[in-house]
């Protein structure tokens, strides 16, 4: 094993002024697009692909792409925290506690724990990628459709066992998300479902459109009905450090646990970055000492998902580099970029183009450091966004939201769809329905359904396919346990005649409690 020798030579390549510049461009550009709702890293990289034709420098290109991804993820969490307008599914979990922190004048701490958490998770998971890529990839490709179904079920149960203060409202949100997930062409048979005879709905309801609608637009409509001061919450005055001693103490656990969830999930060929963020959030909430603080800005709820989100990217690179299997939209576009350079990611890539692979991995370390170095000082600037006069700020959010949907889909009808979902988001806020379960249903629902039917199709309809392999059976058992266990204390309490302790009523936006 000369992993470290290879890695060292990778650093030798990357640490040239030219490549550092590419990395810096990537991180800056990524942060810029990440701030815009709807325009994520995948779209940016796709649009930059033609530029790479003529750049003729694969190493530089990929260094820039890695920077874009990290930057975009961080940019997305910035707006989630400050304005409750996540741009894609992986930053929805961050918005839940992050926005509450910002409302209470703790925006700096939230941004700092996100930045440092991303750095910690990125660094650890890149290390895991350097050392464990091959065995993890071998493990990941043993997952079959039945296992994915069991895994999706487990994730669903794990994150929705805590739908919250009002189970009925939480479930209603979830079912709405599941319904949205069904709209469009069935992935297995190509049959249209819930399209009501329109062409426009055939493609389904894009998760980005839903997120922009429910958050950016729904939030603005909600705010428009309330006489608020000209500016949002005042920020705690300037001199305080990014994170207090207590914040550090409460953050490092979630960072590490978030990494532990994010990396393996990213590595699964049907994993992705969004599910682990929700898992991390739920887990932190479940075990936190400050549980009562959840819903009002608990720092653990920002630290965990942000770490998971970043760790997932290194995870995503495992199947991409070792098998040529893209597991996220960004990875799919990066695969296209590899092919432009006549490189075929797969088992031989590490042998045929070691320079490139190790430079890419080294650039991940560099990108992480750059992100931290560029963004920690910028936090001071970012929080000033909150001082923009409210009418201008929200007008800007609406313009960017519209722009994002229009640019990503090229259709005014999709813009109207986002607006319509925005009106629903407004209604959900008005009637105190939680928003996050909609996104969960939309992501996990189709995964469960398609994998379930796929597994049955492969097994010719034989239901024993869900129990005859130890992996599937174990995952399903875990799902059942996860379903029952969280309710035990509540059931016992109910039996003892105790009423549930009602929290004081407050303005609830995206709160998942």
């Amino acid at each position, binding site marked *: 094993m000369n992993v470290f020798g290879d890695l060292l030579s990778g650093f030798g390549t990357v640490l040239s002024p030219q490549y550092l510049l590419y990395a810096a461009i990537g991180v800056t550009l990524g942060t810029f697009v990440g701030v815009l709702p709807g325009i994520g890293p995948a779209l940016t990289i796709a649009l930059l692909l033609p530029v790479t034709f003529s750049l003729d420098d694969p190493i530089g290109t990929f260094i820039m792409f890695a920077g874009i991804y990290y930057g975009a993820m961080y940019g997305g969490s910035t707006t989630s925290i400050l304005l409750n307008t996540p741009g894609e599914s992986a930053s929805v979990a961050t918005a839940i506690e992050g926005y509450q922190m910002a409302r209470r004048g703790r925006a700096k701490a939230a941004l700092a724990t996100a930045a440092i958490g991303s750095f910690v998770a990125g660094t650890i998971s890149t290390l895991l990628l350097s050392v464990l890529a091959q065995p993890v990839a071998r493990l990941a490709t043993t997952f079959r459709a039945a296992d994915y179904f069991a895994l999706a079920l487990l994730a669903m149960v794990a994150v929705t066992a805590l739908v919250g203060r009002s189970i009925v409202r939480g479930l209603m949100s979830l079912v709405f998300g599941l319904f949205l997930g069904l709209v469009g062409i*069935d992935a297995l048979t190509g049959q249209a479902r819930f399209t009501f005879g329109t062409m426009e709905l055939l493609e389904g309801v894009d998760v980005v459109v839903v997120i922009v609608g429910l958050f950016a637009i729904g939030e603005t*409509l909600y705010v428009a009905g309330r*006489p608020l001061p000209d500016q949002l919450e005042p920020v705690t005055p300037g001199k305080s450090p990014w994170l207090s001693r207590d914040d550090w103490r409460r953050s490092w656990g979630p960072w590490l646990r978030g990494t532990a969830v994010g990396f393996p999930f990213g590595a699964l060929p049907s994993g992705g970055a969004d599910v682990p963020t929700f898992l991390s959030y739920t887990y932190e909430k479940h075990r936190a000492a400050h549980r009562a603080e959840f819903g009002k800005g608990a720092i653990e709820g920002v630290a965990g998902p942000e770490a998971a989100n970043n760790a997932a990217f290194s995870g995503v690179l495992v199947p991409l580099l070792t098998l040529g299997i893209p597991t996220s939209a960004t990875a799919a576009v990066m695969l296209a970029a590899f092919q432009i350079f006549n490189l075929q990611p797969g088992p031989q890539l590490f042998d045929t183009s070691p320079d490139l692979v190790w430079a890419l991995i080294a650039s991940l370390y560099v990108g992480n450091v750059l992100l931290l170095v560029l963004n920690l000082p910028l936090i001071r600037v970012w929080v000033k966004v909150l001082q923009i006069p409210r009418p201008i700020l929200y007008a800007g959010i609406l313009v960017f939201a519209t722009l994002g949907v229009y640019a990503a889909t090229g259709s005014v009808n999709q813009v109207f769809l986002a607006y319509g979902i925005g009106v629903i988001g407004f209604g959900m806020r008005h009637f105190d329905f939680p928003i996050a379960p909609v996104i969960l249903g939309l992501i996990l629902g189709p995964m469960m359904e398609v994998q379930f039917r796929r597994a049955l199709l492969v097994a010719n309809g034989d239901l024993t396919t869900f129990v005859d392999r130890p992996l599937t059976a174990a995952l399903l058992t875990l799902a059942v346990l996860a379903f029952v266990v969280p309710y035990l204390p509540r059931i016992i309490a109910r039996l003892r005649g105790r009423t549930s302790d009602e929290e004081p009523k407050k303005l609830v936006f995206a709160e998942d409690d």
Partner: protein
Amino acid sequence: METRLRTGGVVLGAVLVLAGVGLVWSALAAADGDLGLQSPRLAPVVISLAWVGIAAAYLMSQFRTTDEEPAERPHWWGPAGVAASLAGFAIALEYAGFVVSAAAFVLVVARVLGSRNLLRDAIVALLLPVAIYFAFTHLLDIFLPAGVLPL
């Protein structure tokens, strides 16, 4: 106030139940009896039935609760005004072009949201769309409608 909110809840619950019934009907009609485990028609039926059940439970709960007392009374014209401005923006987008429609939208929606500083709004309404337009079309290569302006 208390009663108003509850009335709202009851109406919402009723609407949700009705919508759910509509979905069940449409799902069953599409299924045409084909509800095997592998059928693409099973999940819509299951989900819409769950929708009806949960919506009914919500409707019931609205007859019982008396707890909530909203902190402030929201006004309806703010959201309605924003929604109307948005609709206008989207309709104008492909005809008037991005720059013109976005500028008008910023001006109007800032008013709706309570801005009284016309000069400031006008400056933002001018600079923001132009900056976005050039950044997107010329640098990111993302197409935006030019519309009436000779851009």
